[in-house]
């Protein structure tokens, strides 16, 4: 379970808080949309969860532990159970699809045998079987993002964090990607998606947490993008 307790984040050099006295809970296995205009604090919330940033005030608990207090080893463990998906995909251009996904296991020191076994499974799961040897530049935006998702999924994360995953994709492709996220969520993974794609949010009928200027303005179990 994820719990934010009165979390305020003020970036150095800024007088306006990016997040202001935010409290919320997300249970394991939930599917959550973070919505709100640019600068509302969605990305900050994701960065705080990954502990890329520390809160200025307040506490963030993950499965009962205050993540600000994690020691080096525990922090690594925390980050390893989070899969990250980015708006700009962040694939390595000089690596093939297979190598990009394999990279996630390589950095964890997994054996070549395990990599050979798991990468094709992950690629099949996101619908990219047969594209192993393609380079990112040879793929469509939607396909590139699927590589990003496969890379996030292959280490079997308990949470999937996606920051504007459909920001660079057209509507049809966005919808397909969201269906993939829903599938992933059904297998038990908590999915948290920051997005501007209002039509997708409205159609999915999932929990919606709306932020505005760093404050929680709405939290609905079966919400839509707008009030």
């Amino acid at each position, binding site marked *: 379970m994820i719990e934010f307790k009165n979390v305020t984040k003020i970036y150095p050099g800024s007088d306006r808080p990016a997040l202001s006295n935010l409290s919320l809970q997300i249970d394991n296995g939930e599917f959550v949309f973070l919505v709100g205009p640019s600068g509302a604090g969605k990305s900050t919330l994701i960065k705080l969860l990954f502990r890329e940033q520390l809160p200025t005030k307040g506490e963030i608990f993950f499965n009962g532990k205050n993540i600000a207090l994690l020691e080096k*080893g525990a922090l*690594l463990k925390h980050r390893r159970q989070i899969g990250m998906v980015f708006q700009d995909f*962040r694939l*390595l251009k000089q690596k093939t699809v297979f190598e990009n996904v394999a990279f*996630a296991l390589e950095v964890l*020191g997994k054996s070549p045998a395990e990599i050979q076994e798991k990468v094709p499974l992950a690629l099949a799961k996101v619908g990219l079987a047969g594209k192993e040897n393609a380079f990112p530049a040879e793929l469509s935006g939607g396909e590139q993002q699927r590589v990003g998702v496969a890379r996030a999924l292959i*280490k079997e994360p308990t949470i999937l964090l996606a920051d504007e995953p459909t920001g660079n994709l057209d509507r049809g492709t966005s919808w397909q990607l969201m269906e993939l996220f829903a599938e992933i969520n059904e297998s038990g993974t908590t999915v948290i998606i920051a997005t501007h794609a209002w039509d997708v949010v409205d159609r999915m009928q999932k929990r919606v947490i709306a932020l505005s200027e760093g404050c929680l303005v709405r939290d609905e179990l079966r919400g839509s993008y707008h009030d």
Partner: protein
Amino acid sequence: MINFNSLKYCLRQSFVSLKRNIWLALVTSGIIAVSLAILGGFLLLAVNVGQFVTGVEENVEIGVFLQEGAEAKKVGEQLSALAGVESITFVSKEEGLEILAESLGDAILLSGLAGEDNPLPDAYRVKATDVALVAELTEAIRNIPGVELADYGEDLVNRLLKVTSWLNTLLVGISVLLALGAVFLIVTTIRLSVLARSEEIGIMKYLGASDWFIRFPFLLEGISMGWIGALASTAGLAFIYGKLAATLQQDAFAFFLRPVTALEKLLPIFLGLLLLGTLMGGVGSLISIRKYLKV
């Protein structure tokens, strides 16, 4: 957090990075090689000068010149009785003249001085049991009646020691400056590697790679450059020194310059250079990593 698979990955990464910046890596290794070769050259010189000075010191003899008409035998007895004297050799004025003629290489010049006209005094050459006793012993000998002059070339020995200590300081200073320059170059080279892989490093962080996993390839890269440079310098230095020593040993004119060839004296220098180069590479990359990798 580093296991066998990670180690293999890191080795591959360092190799790829080195290959990508091969020219810069070679220049860096070259600068390390040059600075270490100069340092090594200085060390070899210092070892040889040290041996030369010790040789001079060990062969120090006190020249004792007798007054005109002094009884040589009586003075000899008194010399032998002094504490710290190992041996004494009598050099008559005739022998003295012969030695002088020999060292000048021209006996004819001195031919008129033989016999009654010989201006040289009788003399003794005194050898001390210990070099440290020489100065004291010379003082004591000067007090013996019939001794005109006692001298052991203290000026030469002292000047030699002064010059070598000056030389050592200067050479070590230059070496340190060169080494600092080399480390700076390593920092720059590694920084380029870090920049070339900045995107990858960012992704690695999100994938949960440990700090050491990210840093290790760069550390290896720096260490390899340092090690290659050190290897080149020791190999070059050993080759040149070997040639030089062989020539000096054959050259009759350089009989007084016996080069140091004892392996137990040379090996520490070469091993030290290898270690130093490796260390420079490691320290350089650690500085770079600390500065440019906020992981």
